[in-house]
């Protein structure tokens, strides 16, 4: 089924962004700058990939650029104690302006910028295995950054649950004063979490432009926001994020295909993924509610 194959490709950027967002979420911060960080990564990676001719350098420098902007965001939010919501909005605004201004200064265009010389994202192709139904669609025949997403997910799960860093990140989110009383600086973990989100958003962004060998202003098109939703929908766990982003990718993929054979107007179908998700979410909370009512709910509010 191509629907599934495409769903996996579609979900990859917001899966990656959500992984970084998960870290900030676990330290107790609402990170709405994911969108802007992705945009920075998208722009920088294709520019550097084209300039150096190296895919690896492109992605790496794209990630570094995104991390730098994430650092600015963290500095304003943590050090200057700005409201993280507004500094997040400001980061998004900055990213949308900066990418275009830089594009104009560097390439003289504010529209689509083509990088025919940028390296193509290689597909990982294992023809024999791709023919396996469903599993083949899920795991093979994607571009190499999709696999980076899988790796990051596994890595994130290990870091969060199996390393001291992850333990401290989670502790910071639960009660930062406890972490502080143990001689750690909770802010430094929040900073690191933001930098991690910069890292994965940079990678997520690079996927969007290296895919096309071109940069289009606003190419992220709301994927950072979807990533935010994915984090919540995934109940703030790596596995949950994986499932939630697949649900979202699948819904988008279906709506793409549905346009071809359904009589429903296109704009209406576009709303489809959101409606599915919100219904799923309400359904999930209902299930959770009734289950917890049955099980260990000591206080009913």
């Amino acid at each position, binding site marked *: 089924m191509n629907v599934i194959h495409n769903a996996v490709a579609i979900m990859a950027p917001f899966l990656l962004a959500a992984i970084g967002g998960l870290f900030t979420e676990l330290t107790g911060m609402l990170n709405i700058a994911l969108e802007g960080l992705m945009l920075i990564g998208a722009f920088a990676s294709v520019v550097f990939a084209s300039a150096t001719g190296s895919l690896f350098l492109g992605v790496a420098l794209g990630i570094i650029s995104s991390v730098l902007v994430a650092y600015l965001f963290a500095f304003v939010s943590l050090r200057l104690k700005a409201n993280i919501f507004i500094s997040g909005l400001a980061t998004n605004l900055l990213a949308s302006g900066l990418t275009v201004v830089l594009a104009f200064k560097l390439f003289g265009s504010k529209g689509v910028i083509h990088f025919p010389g940028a390296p193509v994202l290689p597909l990982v192709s294992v023809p024999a295995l791709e023919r396996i139904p469903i599993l083949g669609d899920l795991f093979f025949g994607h571009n190499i950054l999709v696999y980076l997403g899988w790796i990051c997910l596994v890595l994130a799960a290990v870091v969060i649950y199996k390393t001291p860093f992850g*333990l401290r990140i989670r502790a910071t989110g639960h009660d930062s004063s*406890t972490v502080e*009383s*143990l*001689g750690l600086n909770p802010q430094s973990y929040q900073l690191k979490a933001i930098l991690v989100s910069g890292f994965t958003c940079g990678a997520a962004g690079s996927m969007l432009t290296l895919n096309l060998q071109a940069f289009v202003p606003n190419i992220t098109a709301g994927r950072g926001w979807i990533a935010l939703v994915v984090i919540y929908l995934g109940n703030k766990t790596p596995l949950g994020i994986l499932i939630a982003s697949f649900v979202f990718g699948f819904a988008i993929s279906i709506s793409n295909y549905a346009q071809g054979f359904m009589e429903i107007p296109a704009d209406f179908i576009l709303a489809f993924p959101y409606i599915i998700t919100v219904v799923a979410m309400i359904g999930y909370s209902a299930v959770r509610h009734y289950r917890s*009512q049955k099980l*260990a*709910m000591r206080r009913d509010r």
Partner: protein
Amino acid sequence: MPSVDMREICKYYPESGVKANDYVDLSVKKTEIHAIVGENGAGKTTLMNILYGLERADSGRICLDGEEVVIRNPRDAVRLGIGMVHQHFKLIRPFTIAENVTLAMEQRKYGVLLDRREAWKATEKVIADFGFDLDPGAKIADLTAGQMQQVEIVKILYRHADVLILDEPTSVLAEQQIRTLFDTLKNLTCLGKTIIIISHKLDEVMSIADRVTVMRKGKSTAVRNTDEVDDKELSRLMIGKGITYGFKRDASVPGEPVLALYNVSVAERTGHRPLLDNVSFSVRAGEIVGLTGVAGNGLEELEEVVNGLRKVDSGRIEHRGLDVTNASSYFLREQGMAYVPSDRLRRGSSLSSSVLENLIITSRRSFLNRGFFRRKAMEKFGREILKHYSIDTDLYVPMGTLSGGSIQKIILSRELSAQSDFIMFSDPTWGLDVASAEYIYSRILECRRSRAAILLISNDLDEVLGLSDRLMVMHRGKVVGVFENDGTLSKETIGEYILGLRNDFKGDAGNDGQATMGRGDGNGGGIDDNVVGGGSSRDCSDLSPE
């Protein structure tokens, strides 16, 4: 050679204009238990926060074992071998004991990964070495307050601290747990640890500490050996004048029942064991009924049931003969039932709201004029309360900026001003200094004189014994003992009931025979006996390591 030597410590809070520490000296010898006593706001906690690096002194110096040190943050303190148990536990509730203990000093494998087994082992080792009884794999959320405190101490010991600071360590503990704690502390000094305790409970200080530093209004006023002073002198040093700790409870003739519970049961959602199990009792006009027990044995649930915050599964509650079972809090208040909650910072007040907004929560509708507040009347009401109860603050000050004592006074004044015929107090003096506690006690007794029916729920045995006309003990959701408080009761006897060591009570807590036993007692029976039987032995071992 003193182990900890703090000299001329000053700390000024410009925003509130308070000199929390004003040239304070503290000298603690090695392997002694040193108590710092003083009223709320005397600056004890500030001084210890400075020693632990949570706050920085404006001036002064700190020497450890004769060497001057700079403690900028808790990391420095930990490195220097200082550990602190805070009044409010600093534990991550969803984590296990081992995770909490090793947090920030994790056991690692391959340099980067958490080593769960090593963490478990290391925690286990500390637990065993110092004679605790904890399961390293247990989740904090499942522990009792006493166990959490033990975890806090284990946490410090795991960090190889030589100096342990404990801030009000007994405020959440029951009598037996306090004794366990003190045994532990004494044991620790034998193993070479130095212990600093912040407290305002003089009897405890006298029984555990070697020396005492007294603080008053930001200054250290005296240092004494405990075997050279008595608590009268200490309290004189603390408060500035001699007071007699204690209060007089004159005889009273109880009137008709105001509040009565009949076979009230609340099931736990998991269905293991009822939170409240066939509880029946009544409170009569002009009497104080004391209710005590260890946290987690149904006291909190009872508190919520009586206030309408929790629904009962079976049984009946009557107020002056009117069935108020599962009535809303609002309705109960309208009926004249007032309530001073134990959790005064979360349930009893809204810290970010003003004093006035806190005062009007129960009487808010009486200030309405066509749906709008009559601001003048509201302010007049507020000012009168502040004046009448001589609370020294302004109406528009945020509640959170006040001291614990003032907050409790405001809550108390709000509840008492409602002219209720039934008042429930839950841990009314928890964490308060002697003077504030005295004040609260006198108010409670005043209510009793004005023929209100009073239910006093408290973990503080002295308090319950001192105030109650009748006294009930709860264990595992059941009333396991009811006593007329005729002056012959001993703490020890009550303690045995509290811990479930004795369970010979079969009556229905003096309902004057009104109880309708038919309701809701069919489902208790067999299961229940099993659980209590099986559980009580485990419970004992939890609380007393011997």
